């Protein structure tokens, strides 16, 4: 008899969640209300009493911290997807990262802010795998999050950007999928908030998200399923 569930979702996963939510509502009659923000903002809000039921973070750190702080149900902490990093390039995707850094650049290259966005961190880790003496032949510009980073690319202000695979998978741009051993896995975790007003509906949504059908379709959105790795 819980008619709704309040879902707080990190921006990069907003599109898939909206899609899944529709199906979920059809199936269960529970109306998901979706709040999109950056993981950091959502974390701060939950800390200060935001009325969310489920928190889908872009990382593993923040949900774990919420659990550690006693603000989330420990036993509901689950990873729901694993992100993949892609290098999108207007002049054609390079074959490898090494090939990329041997190019010539007249515009900066965009990455997400490593301090704020897991994809940014992943990107800098990936660049860090290059031989130590490789001086990067481009300037970096940082977007606040992965979406802003992608906007630098789409608006034409940069010609190359490290973004989430999910963003470019369905586009016409050519990209290089960065091998997932170039960076720590981008594990995205979710958790149910302790004071949740709809714990039952929240659980059902969680289960739905972890169902095999949904997990299998994650690939279409540019994610790997949670279980892999």
């Amino acid at each position, binding site marked *: 008899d819980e008619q709704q569930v309040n879902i707080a979702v990190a921006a990069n996963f907003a599109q898939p969640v909206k899609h899944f939510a529709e199906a979920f509502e059809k199936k269960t009659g529970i109306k998901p209300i979706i709040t999109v*923000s950056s993981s950091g903002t959502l974390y701060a809000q939950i800390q200060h*009493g*935001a009325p969310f039921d489920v928190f889908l973070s872009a990382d593993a750190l923040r949900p774990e911290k919420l659990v550690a702080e006693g603000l989330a149900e420990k036993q509901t902490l689950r990873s729901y997807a694993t992100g993949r990093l892609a290098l999108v390039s207007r002049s054609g995707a390079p074959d490898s990262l090494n090939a990329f850094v041997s190019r010539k650049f007249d515009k900066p290259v965009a990455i997400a802010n490593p301090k704020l966005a897991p994809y940014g961190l992943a990107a800098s880790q990936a660049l860090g795998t290059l031989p130590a003496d490789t001086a990067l032949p481009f300037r970096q510009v940082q977007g606040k999050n992965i979406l802003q980073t992608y906007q630098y690319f789409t608006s034409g202000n940069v010609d190359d950007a490290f973004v989430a695979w999910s963003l470019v998978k369905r586009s016409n741009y050519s990209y290089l999928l960065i091998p997932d051993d170039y960076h720590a896995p981008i594990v995205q975790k979710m958790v149910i908030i302790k004071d949740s007003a709809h714990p039952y509906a929240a659980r059902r949504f969680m289960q739905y998200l972890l169902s095999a059908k949904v997990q299998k379709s994650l690939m279409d959105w540019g994610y790997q399923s949670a279980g892999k790795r």
Partner: protein
Amino acid sequence: MQSDIDAIWLTLKLALFTSVLLMLIATPLAWKLSRWQHKAKNLVLAVVALPLVLPPTVLGFYLLVVFSPNAVAGELWQLITGEQLAFSFAGLVIGSLIYSLPFAVQPLYASFLQLDNRYIDVARTMGMSKWSRFRRIIMPICKPAFMVALGLSFAHTVGEFGVVLMIGGNIPGETQVLSIALFEHVEAMEYGKAHALAFGLLVFSFLLMALLYRYNRNGVTAWKS
């Protein structure tokens, strides 16, 4: 689209509440400041302008801390109203008030300083009450400044974003205002929707402002030539 319409409605409500409340707060404050002959005046003026120098999100973060039921202010509010301050419409209004206060206070302050006090003296000898003097003399003479204060605070509340996002929580139908919806469309690369919404917002605001400034016409403006 329903959520966009909700957002439009909420934004209008918020901007209206905020700008009207702001005028009610800012007018007496600016008046007192303009008539106050104390050194501390500059400090008060500086304090009024301070919310501006914090990035909206950061200001919003601190407000969130203050509004939280664990903090005194948030607890008091919850005691009195029975509701949580953060993530409520009231919280949005308070946040917007604080953030937009300088835009209302400062133009009024400057205008009140420029006002010739002797008009008020005349009104006083004519037996006008404080309120009549304000409504029939001060307000019309300083009308341009009132329009500016109202226009700036309305527009700023419509466009404001960081504070509202932080303390509002972007809850559709409750605290998701237009600026956030627009932001989301852009972030989600729904550019078509974003352009439509931005265009609509611009046109609407333009009309509203044009209407507002029209009232300025027969102000104290005629050109003595």
